[in-house]
Structure formats: structure tokens, C-alpha cells
């Protein structure tokens, strides 16, 4: 007969097999339900440049959803952590710090605008978290350090694109340049345009400046009109470009106005109306380009987002996420340094904005497209290779 103590012990031990089984089951569960891989995104979802930020965000989300549907990366699902910088200075650095230290993201995607990329890049660099900007074109962004990349071309190239187009296709010899002093993008683009245009034998007869938020350009345009030029280069954002075109037309200035990728937004035509007809701008991609990749992307985007056509920002957002995911896959780990090296080694990645290869300065050598506004719509004109 067992002693009292022995019976007690047996009673105690009775749940043991069940608990061992439970523990085994639990640990097996933990083996299968892995943590997600987090990728951070900071974008201007609200504020003055919300049009760009929302566009690139949509493209990024589509890419991540696709990747997850195909099984994720490294056997894990990807979680996109997005923060809104409200198009304001000072916010990007705080939210990127939060993404890195609190959310522990493996990589950061952003930003559309060069100014805000310049703000956040030093932080990503300091914490050794790779950052890919979808569409910041100012060269200084990637100069910050080896952890900063971009999937688009840079302003020195974009400036030459429009310079060549103005000279060769539009046959302009004498132009004016109207620059926004408030943005790194505008100042940089203007500089490179001028260099190339003058080197090609053209003349920049007059330069005028404005500030972001300005509504009245009559004074600058009147001065430009008096200088008798054949075209006006306006390397700014659509908010001002639309008004500039309108006021130019009202002053009976019929010459073409042209600009860069900052022009691309539906509001350009909404606000500009008939005034922007026959104007041109350069950008990274057009939904009308006839390649299978673009066609497939446009179809997927329309299906996901209620029939909206993706613009250049959406396409670049998509590609930046694609490159990041591809790099993580090639790196085989979520280590910052490993991902960084994999991104740097990106070669001939076939995206929707063309084939991406990272050069030694961590910029992508891509072609540009020139778009014309015709009949109230954006119309693809030509591709310009680097």
C-alpha cells in the first residue's frame, strides 16, 4: 500500500503528462508562427505634398502585399510599418528614429521629397539601417553614407534630359528659368538644366525665383515676357507650376513651359486647366509605356485601387519596396549590413520603372520619359536613355 506521501506525489504528478504534451505543443507552435519581418516607411500622407506621398505609399503597399501573397521572404511575412511625416520639416527624423528603435525595422523606405530624405538619411546611416528612397532626385541624398540608396535617377541626369529635349525636340534657343528657392529639388534641377543647356549652345536669357506657397507670379512672368524667350523651364512642384502656366497664358505668353517630375499630379491639370496644354515634363515612368511589366503593373494597380492609374510615384514606390524585398531575399538575413550589401549588389532588377542597377554611388541608372499634356491628359512622348 502506498504511503500518504506517495499518494500525494502521484496526485501531483497526474497532470504531468498533459502538461508535458501541452508544453511540447506550445513550443512546436512557436516554431511555426514566426515573427514578421518589419519594413518601415515614412511618407507625406497628409499635408502639402500628400499627393506624392499617398501615391508612393499605394505602390509600396501593393508590392508588399504581392510579396506576402507569394510566401513572404525568408519564410516570413512582411509587415509594413508606415508613419506620416505630414510634409513637414522636423517630423521625418523623429518618426524614422521611432521606426528604427521602437519598431525595429530591418529597412526603411522613403522619402519622396529630397528635403525630407536628407533629414532622415543621417539617422538611418548612424543606426546602420538601409534606406531606399523611391524618388528623391537630389544627389546629396545618397552622399550621406553607404546605407542610403535610391531607385530613381538623380537631378544631374534629369536636368540634362529636359535640356536636351528643349534644345533638340522643341528647338528652343533662348529660355528662361523660374526656380523655387524653397526646395533642394528645384534649386538642384535648375542648376543642372542650365549647365547642360548652355553647354549645348543654348541661352538662358533670364532667371527668376519664387518661394513655395507663392500664388502670384505675374511680376516674375512679366519680367520674363519682356526678355523675349522661347520657352520657360519651371523645375518646381505641381502646386506652383499649374498657377505659373495659367498666369503665363493670361499674360499672353504662348511659349511652352516645361519642368521635371515634380509636375506630375492630377492637380496639375485640375488647377492648370487649358493653360497646361502643350506643356512638357520629365519623369520616371509612364503608364502608357508599352512593356509587359508596365502593363501588368497598371492592371494590378487598377484592380487593387478602384481603377486608379498608377503614376510615377506609385511605380517608384512599388519598385523601391521590390528592391528591398529582393535584397533581403538575396542577403538571406535581416542583418542591416547584409541587406545593405545585397542592395548595393542589385543588378538588372526588372521593375516597372525599367531595369535597376545600383551604381557605385548607390543611385540607379534609369531612363527618363518625357510627358506632354494633351487634351487634358498626360501623354507619353519619348524615352530618354542616360
Amino acid at each position, binding site marked *: 500500500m502506498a504511503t500518504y506521501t506517495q499518494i500525494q506525489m502521484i496526485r501531483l504528478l497526474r497532470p504531468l503528462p498533459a502538461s508535458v504534451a501541452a508544453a511540447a505543443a506550445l513550443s512546436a507552435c512557436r516554431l511555426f508562427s514566426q515573427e514578421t519581418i518589419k519594413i518601415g516607411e515614412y511618407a507625406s500622407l*497628409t*499635408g*502639402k505634398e*500628400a*499627393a506624392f506621398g499617398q501615391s508612393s505609399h499605394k505602390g509600396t503597399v501593393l508590392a508588399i502585399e504581392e510579396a506576402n501573397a507569394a510566401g513572404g521572404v525568408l519564410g516570413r511575412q512582411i509587415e509594413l510599418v508606415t508613419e506620416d511625416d505630414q*510634409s513637414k520639416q522636423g517630423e521625418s527624423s523623429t518618426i524614422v528614429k521611432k521606426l528604427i528603435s521602437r519598431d525595429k525595422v530591418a529597412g526603411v523606405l522613403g522619402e519622396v521629397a529630397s528635403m525630407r530624405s536628407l533629414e532622415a538619411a543621417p539617422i538611418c546611416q548612424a543606426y546602420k539601417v538601409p534606406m531606399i528612397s523611391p524618388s528623391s532626385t537630389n544627389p546629396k541624398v545618397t552622399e550621406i553614407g553607404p546605407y542610403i540608396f535610391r531607385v530613381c535617377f538623380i537631378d544631374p541626369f534629369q536636368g540634362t534630359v529636359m535640356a536636351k529635349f528643349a534644345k533638340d525636340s522643341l528647338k528652343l534657343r533662348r529660355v528662361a528659368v523660374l526656380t523655387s*528657392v524653397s526646395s533642394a529639388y528645384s534649386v538642384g534641377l535648375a542648376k543642372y538644366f542650365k549647365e547642360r543647356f548652355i553647354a549645348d549652345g543654348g541661352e538662358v536669357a533670364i532667371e*527668376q*525665383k*519664387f*518661394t513655395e*506657397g507663392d*500664388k*502670384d507670379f*505675374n*511680376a*516674375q512672368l*512679366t*519680367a520674363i*515676357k*519682356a526678355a523675349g524667350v522661347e520657352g520657360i523651364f519651371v523645375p518646381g512642384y505641381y*502646386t506652383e507650376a*499649374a*498657377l505659373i502656366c*495659367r498666369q503665363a497664358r*493670361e*499674360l*499672353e505668353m504662348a511659349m511652352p513651359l516645361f519642368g521635371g517630375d515634380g509636375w506630375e499630379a492630377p*492637380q496639375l491639370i*485640375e*488647377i492648370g*486647366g487649358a493653360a497646361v496644354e502643350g506643356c512638357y515634363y520629365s519623369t520616371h515612368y509612364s503608364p502608357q509605356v508599352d512593356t509587359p511589366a508596365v502593363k501588368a503593373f497598371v492592371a494590378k494597380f487598377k484592380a487593387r485601387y478602384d481603377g486608379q492609374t498608377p503614376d510615377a510615384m506609385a511605380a517608384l514606390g512599388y519598385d523601391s519596396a521590390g528592391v528591398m524585398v529582393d535584397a533581403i531575399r538575396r542577403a538571406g538575413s535581416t542583418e542591416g549590413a547584409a541587406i545593405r550589401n545585397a542592395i548595393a549588389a542589385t543588378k538588372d532588377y526588372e521593375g516597372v520603372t525599367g531595369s535597376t542597377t545600383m551604381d557605385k554611388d548607390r543611385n540607379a541608372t534609369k531612363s527618363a520619359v518625357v510627358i506632354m499634356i494633351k487634351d487634358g491628359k498626360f501623354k507619353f512622348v519619348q524615352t530618354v536613355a542616360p
Partner: protein
Amino acid sequence: MTEFLQQLLNGLSLGAIYALIALGYTMVYGVLRFINFAHSDVFMVGAFIGYFAGSHLPHGTVWGGLVALAAAMAGCAVLGMTIERLVYRPLRGGPTLNVLITAIGMSLFLEYTGQLVFGATPRAFPSIFPSKVIAVHGLIVSMNQVIVIVVAAILMVALQFAVHRTKIGTAMRAVALNPKAAQLVGINIDVVISFTFGLGSALAGAGGVLYALNYPSIDPLMGVVPGLKAFVAAVLGGVGNIPGAALGALILGMVETFVDGSRWSTYKDAIAFAILIGILLFRPAGLLGRFTAEKV
């Protein structure tokens, strides 16, 4: 020469808009002795009312434009009077600093609620008046500019009439001169102040629509900078002085346009403030104002 005349015309139309806003500031200051920071946002609301009215009315017609204008003016008058009644009146009689702070709060409230409701991205203002461009000897005159100048002039004349020839206008002037004495002779201060706010806000609303006509991109923060410049104009002309506000606005509009077309265009905001500081240093009463010594 053409360029000079063109800039002159541009400056005139800009000045006309500043004048409409400045009149509101100057009237409220004359009567209540405080700067209504929220005035510039009433201007913005006017533009938005015009935007929504315009989307329901046919474009390019004169009567359509006038209806939108009237709607904006009426809407802003109501808004102005409501703000006065709910927010400023309870603080009357207290230190002016408190009202100033409340006014700043009201301004921020209108701006950021606007951003929340309308989004911060600029919208295209419909061309509610017929938009034509006439060329006169190389000078380009746009219909919108003409409308701005004409409407502003009409409103200012109407205001002068109202202030000097009507009973309520006289009451306004009395309250501006001495509130306590005005009450003693039986003037209902509340009514007068409400009316002043309503009138000033209506003018700001008109200013908003006219501004949006010329610069058809509206957003909730559009009132901040024009509002500040309009205040500078009011001070330049002599705060509390209606013709002074118009004169100051005109001068400011001209100076700003000419600076804008010159090499120093990016300093144009700073110029407006430099003028403000200059005037306050050298002639604080403004160009047409009278200096009232502060009695203890």
C-alpha cells in the same frame, strides 16, 4: 514701359484684395482695440464657400459669379458674428492679451479643422466669372483682375457710405471714439460690435473669392500670409482709418509686385514686415491716422 504699366496693374489688383481684408482688420480694431487674428481664416472660408457655390453654379457667367460672391459674403458674415458672440464677447472687459490669445487659438482652429475637412492639398477654384483676356496696347488685362478692382472699389465706396451716412455707421464711429460715452448716449454696444464683425467678415469673404479668382489654387492655409500683409497695410494707412487701410493696401500691393519682379523677389515677404517695422518706428499712427496719446 509696358512692363512697368503691367506691373502697375498687377500691383493694383493685388492691392485691391489686400484692401478688402485690411478693411475688416481696421474696423474691428477701431471698435474693439484688438487684432482679430482669425480674420485671415474667415478670408479662407470665403474662398471655400465660393468654391462650393461655384461647383453648383454655371461657370463663366456674371450672375453665377455674383451669386457665389454673395454667398461667400453672407456665409462669412454669419461666421464672423458667431465667432464674436461665442468666443470674444465673454472676454470683453478683460485684459486684451487674453482676447489676443483666444484669437490666435480661433485662427489655428479654423486652419487645422480646414485641413482636416478639406485636406491640405490645394484645390482648383472654378472660374465663376467669365474669364477673358483683353490686350490694350501690349498691356494684358485679364477680366479677373478687372473684376477684382471694380468689386473692391464698389465695396469700399459702399463701406464709406455705410459708415458715414447710416445710423449704424455713426454708432460704429461713436463706439470707436469712446465706448463708454457711446453707451451713455444709448447705443447698444453689442449690436454695433456684432454688426462691425459681420461687415468686416463679409468683406474678407469677398476678398477670399476675388483672391481665388486670380490665384485659383485654394487650401486651408491660404489666408495666413495675405492676412498678415493686409494687417501691415492697415497699420501702414493708420489703424482704425478706413481710407487709410485702402491706401496702405494699395501701396503695399505695388511695392510687393515691383519687388517680386526684381532681383530680390524672394525677399518679398520680408519687405512687407520691414515696412511694418519702419512705419511703427517712424510714424506709428500710420499715413492717415492720428496719434492718440494714451491717457491714464
